[in-house]
């Protein structure tokens, strides 16, 4: 019996996925409440490509090194830029930023603190403010 398939574990897998969805939904609801977030930030639903590369370019372009590339879903090399060894459980990517140098990484994290971490927040008019 020790070698038999553990059905409860498979339920746990499904529960894990379910929990992740619940977590996302809760995060979304908390953000919807809007408490604690500056007014220039608004929440949005999960729509791939909602944050455009043009938008990133506009808000961040001048502060990144000129070897940085910004790749949106409509760009031809987007698929290559997000390719993974396994597609199982892959993250959703709206925009790829390939920093030209190490300092750019910090700039990106500061400019898009929540999007970098996958929380669904959109900056409508970036004002150089660091969100904590």
């Amino acid at each position, binding site marked *: 019996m020790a070698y038999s398939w553990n059905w409860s574990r498979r339920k746990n897998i499904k529960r894990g996925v379910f929990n992740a969805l619940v977590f*996302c939904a809760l995060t979304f609801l908390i953000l919807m409440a809007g408490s604690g977030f500056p007014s220039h930030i608004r929440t949005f639903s999960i729509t791939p490509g909602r944050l455009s590369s043009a938008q990133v370019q506009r808000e961040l372009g001048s502060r990144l090194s000129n070897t940085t590339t910004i790749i949106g879903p409509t760009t031809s090399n987007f698929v290559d830029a997000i390719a993974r060894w396994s597609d199982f459980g892959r993250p959703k990517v709206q925009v790829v930023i390939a920093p030209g140098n190490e300092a750019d990484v910090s700039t990106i994290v500061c400019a898009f603190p929540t999007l970098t971490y996958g929380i669904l927040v959109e900056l409508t008019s970036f004002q150089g403010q660091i969100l904590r």
Partner: protein
Amino acid sequence: MAYNRGYAFTNTFGSFNGIQINLVNLNSIMIQLDGKSAWFGGGTYTGQVANYLWDRGFITTTASAQCVSLLGTGLGGGYGDQQGAYGMVSDNFLQLNVVLADGSTICVNSTSHEDLFWGLKGAGHNFGIVTSAEMNIYPREAEFWYYHNYIWRGDKLVDIFNAINKLTADGSVPLNMAVNYGTFMMNTTISTEEPIILWTFLYSGPAEEARPYFVDFDAIESAWDDSGELSYVDIPSARFNSVNDPLCQKAGVDKLVTTAGLQVYNLTTEQEIWNRFKERVASNPDLAASAFIVHEGYSNQAVLEHNPDDSAYPFRDDYHLMMFQGILEPNSILKDEMWEWAWEVKDMWNAGQPGRFPDSYVNYANGFEGPEEWYGNVPWRLERLRGLKAKYDPNNRFRFFNPIVD
């Protein structure tokens, strides 16, 4: 989310939706003047690093597969072909530049943020984005490596695992027997009815010196074998993990993976795993054709010389690294059956070593296992990691790769 080569596969980042910071441009390698260390950008990868250093007379610790990230591997500990002589990838970290969740940049080494330095060596994906790191490098020594690949039929299984257990007894793998790597898989040119056992050996030195270690294996009648001496940088193609090999390809497929860490092979367990593979060849040939049951082993002398408490990597006493890999098209109807098989094999490996808690090398974990299985089922390790999390990433932004804190 930071991305370098895209070989991480845990389910835990499935909930991410946002910006990918692609480190591809941070690909510089700078050998320091004293020739004892080099700086590596966050976008460097194994094959690039190995070739660059070799051409200049050096080597360092990397993952084994040529396609994978150098630093991503190291942040999870970092098994590799050079670990017997030089330790794991993370054992060779000297300092790392890290961008934290608040956008600040810190330098982490044994005197600056030394608490985080401990955490980055084994649980490092949890704290920030590593943009570059300085690592030890070493003068290149063995010009040629000896490789020997065998394909054995299943009726030789007991002899094979007895010989491997003898070679690797109590973790005392001979220093230069760098890699031994065995896979149960289908190869229809050999048999359409049962899996073959493919075993790859790499010895860091000439054939003449290696020969005594192969007496036991040469004595087991093989269905096919191939051996020879190659330059270190040409070895990957002989062991099927160069950037051009199928192992490294990103083909838009799902990899269903389970993993385990072992000290010794349980012959009853391995026989049963092989038998159940053979049963599936008859009952579900499509499923069987898509499965690879991998037994990785590396020389480990330098790994064991490190005090295990000195880094967050918790499993230095695992001498063998197991991986079940099922490769399926997205939305394959075989998915449930493949998961069932994957967990079955993992459970068998662990049931075959009673008294040991299941371990999952964090770079091979599928995300369903949990922190005790990734970071060590030892309270002080998890407490220490949670403390680092509270200090360096209090809002738990970096929680998408097998997270310490959910």
